[in-house]
């Protein structure tokens, strides 16, 4: 059980990144990334849900009957998402209306159930909480990278602020296909960086 916090963080953020390694949570990657502000709120929501769900599921893991673990995980995740949804409605009504159904859809985000099942199910609460945070951050930085490019090229703005130069906006970046292209490019870029680091390490051993 001795997984070091550093390894958990590195795994979640890079080595085992939910988006470009595990290719999970693609639905929200495609849906919310055309505006940076919406993406940011979505990411914060996901990090919170993932960390809390992993923590709770892990605390209950020794008393959870094996065949009921998915049911109880879903229940836990849904409860945290409903709480988040209510808090957004009460304190950030504008953002809540803009995000519409996406917040509720965090429940069905495969990353959450995936991490709860794969990690929190057989690790103690604190490492599970860290793993949740790390996976959430790994998800977030890829999403934000995609969102910055999509909003920048599609609208000529970043978080609603006009870019300092004028150009013809790429409408395709605002629509779903733009997200597919960006996701493909980013996955390729990250894996290429990985492969390069590996071959460099192999070369230095010789």
């Amino acid at each position: 059980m001795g997984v070091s916090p550093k390894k958990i963080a590195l795994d979640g953020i890079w080595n085992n990144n939910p988006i470009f390694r595990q290719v999970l949570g693609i639905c929200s990657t495609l849906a919310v990334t055309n505006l940076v502000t919406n993406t940011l709120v979505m990411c914060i929501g996901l990090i919170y849900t993932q960390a809390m769900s992993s923590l709770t599921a892990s605390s209950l893991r020794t008393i959870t009957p094996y065949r009921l673990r998915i049911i109880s995980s879903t229940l836990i995740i849904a409860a945290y998402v409903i709480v988040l949804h209510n808090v957004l409605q009460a304190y950030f009504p504008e953002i809540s209306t803009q995000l519409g159904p996406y917040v509720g859809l965090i429940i069905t985000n495969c990353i959450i159930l995936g991490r709860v099942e794969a990690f929190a199910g057989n690790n103690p609460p604190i490492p599970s909480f860290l793993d949740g945070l790390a996976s959430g951050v790994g998800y977030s930085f890829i999403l934000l990278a995609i969102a910055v490019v999509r909003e920048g090229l599609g609208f000529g703005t970043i978080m609603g602020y006009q870019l300092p130069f004028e150009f013809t906006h790429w409408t395709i970046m605002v629509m779903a296909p733009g997200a597919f292209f960006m996701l493909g490019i980013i996955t390729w870029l990250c894996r290429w960086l990985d492969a390069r680091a590996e071959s460099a390490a192999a070369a230095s051993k010789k």
Partner: protein
Amino acid sequence: MRLLKELLFIFLVSLFFAGLTVSVNQALSGRILLNEQTRNTKKLLQVFKIPYAENASPESLRQLEAKRIDEGRLDGTTVYRGLDEKGEPLGYAIPISGKGFWGRIHGFLSLDNDLKAIKGIVFTSHNETPGLGARIEEQWFRAQFEGLQLANAVRPGKYVEISKSDDSGKNKLDAITGATMTSVALEKIVNDDLKSFVANQDKFRRIEWESPQRK
């Protein structure tokens, strides 16, 4: 025995998390309701072009609404009459709603005192794609509706057409690039609701208006 244990476990877990969500909802529901009402009030003020401070408190907005907006009932739906500072009618507003691209679109459409021209349009809720269909909320798009004469219908029953504006003198508006489905859906919503409104005009003129009663 094993089954009993499992049942007990799932019962307790459900009970705990249901309790958690219910209590959070209970604690926040007043605030959520107030947000919704404030939002609605702002939208009504907008559709009548009654100025208000963006950071006005919910209480002062409600007072403004009580002074400047009257309510009436038409076949079970609530309709509104806007008043100027002196209490003279500014125009009327009807709720509009219908199927958008992703979900239902709700809003208000206001008409002038003679019920012959559109004064404005606002949207209270929709689930259109952020950055595309959601741009129906933007000022430039909504401004296109202002001042359209119902007499300039594109053809009988089709009061507005949302595709491309031209100089034919008909009510043709520019659609949103990349949001054709939303534009088509909105066109249908506006035309359908206007059609049933025009058919009900005589009833509308007989409505008894009163200041809104809010708890």
